[in-house]
């Protein structure tokens, strides 16, 4: 076995198994064998849209300023899945949707998603893409100012922020709170979670947003990788619990094996 780097057999095995698990899970996802639990935040989305209809005020869905080519692309994709869900609900219940955009790459995709949702509900004439999905700016502070301005002007009843967010998260959460909007925040950029957690009525922490995106889109790719990750997390749970108990009893076999 001289070809293999010594002391890396366990990571290597974990790596190869991850490869296999990804394939298996995606196959199972295609066959509909995987069920993702409903994230409580999703019920809150329905509540927000319903509330906006009652109050006759608009709903905002902000997916952040991510693009498809950076490492936050998966967060942008999860945000778009949520946008599809939100726009369907808005079309169905008759709420006015605003989804300002910050990326010229993402804008056409987002527009297509929203248009499709309204078309499927037979309400194509109720959406004006140019007005309701405006391109604000690709630079952070100009984008933040644009959103803050819109929030003050339109006084939305609800605001859904799911996607990659940077320092602007605090400004957004605070501006929408000031006009009395009910809010949901979600991002896998954990630094921004405290601002969401403190001001939003519901917050999706880290991977919860991916699970929510997979849940509403039903895309076997997304669903499958959630399942594959779950298997690994279950393995980590089992090994961690067992290892800690054994180690407490003086048997350090699991810890020793894993650092090999």
């Amino acid at each position, binding site marked *: 076995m*001289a*070809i*293999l*780097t010594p002391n*890396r057999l366990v*990571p*290597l095995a974990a*790596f190869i198994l*991850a*490869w296999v*698990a*990804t394939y298996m899970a*995606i196959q199972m996802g295609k066959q509909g064998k995987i069920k993702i639990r409903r994230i409580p935040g999703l019920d809150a989305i329905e509540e927000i849209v319903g509330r906006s209809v009652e109050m006759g005020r608009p709903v905002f869905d902000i997916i952040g300023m991510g693009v*498809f*080519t950076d490492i936050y*692309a*998966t967060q942008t*994709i999860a945000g778009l899945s949520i946008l599809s869900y939100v726009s369907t609900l808005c079309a169905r219940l008759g709420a006015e949707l605003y989804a300002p955009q910050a990326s010229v*790459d993402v804008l056409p*995709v987002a527009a297509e998603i929203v248009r499709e949702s309204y078309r499927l509900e037979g309400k194509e004439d109720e959406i004006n893409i140019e007005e309701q999905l405006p391109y604000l700016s690709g630079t952070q*502070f100009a984008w933040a100012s644009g959103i803050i301005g819109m929030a003050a002007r339109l006084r939305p009843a609800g605001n859904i922020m799911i996607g990659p967010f940077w*320092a602007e998260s*605090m*400004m957004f*959460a*605070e501006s929408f*709170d000031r006009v009395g909007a009910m809010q949901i925040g979600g991002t*896998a950029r*954990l630094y921004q979670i*405290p*601002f969401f*957690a*403190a*001001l939003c009525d519901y*917050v999706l922490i*880290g*991977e919860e947003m*991916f699970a929510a995106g997979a849940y509403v889109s039903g895309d076997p*790719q997304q669903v499958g*990788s959630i399942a*594959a*990750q779950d298997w*690994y*997390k279950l393995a*980590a749970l089992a090994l961690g619990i067992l290892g800690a108990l054994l180690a407490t009893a003086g048997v350090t076999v699991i810890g020793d094996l894993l650092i090999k």
Partner: protein
Amino acid sequence: MDYRRDIPLAITFIVGVIAVLDYYTTLESVTATFTVIKNWGVVLQAFALGLGAVNLFRVHGKRVSERTREDWMFSGWLLLMLVLFVVVGLITGQYDASTSYQWIYNALYLPLGATMYSSLAFYMAYGAYKVLRARNFEAALLFITAVLVIIGNTPIFPATYPGFFHMREWIFGPIVSGAYRGIRIGVGIGAVILGIRTLVGLETGYLGRR
């Protein structure tokens, strides 16, 4: 075979697999190949550094030539500044090591880079006042540790009573270590599985959508 799509996917796969083999095997040939790949990666990343500027020229150049938006002068200024840095950087042949480049860097870039984000401190103070309210159970949990950590981070409190600092250190002990290790395991495995999907061509967002 679609050379617009299949060849790029094959390149990703081959390069990625060599990187992985370099880590798990001791084969000389793999290490040597990967050394070349790494060096090329550095050069390609350097080429990619110009992409941002091309984007800016496309967007702002158009604004300047059309002059329809009221803020087109800002666009012109932006491009002027861009060109200024490039010219000063290249003209000496010394790039960032030249004194004239360091002069304009220290005059323009350093203050802006340092202030652009740090001016959020003001927003932060206002935000903490407006945001950090124990309005429900979850916000209260966040509130408790946030306030205790701020107290521990503020030298005047530990100077009065050292326990404030030990409290802060303790929070960074078991509380932070436990939850963040759990998060780290989840994030780590998420990245590995996303990476594998990318290598085998299931995740193709980076190829663009045209």
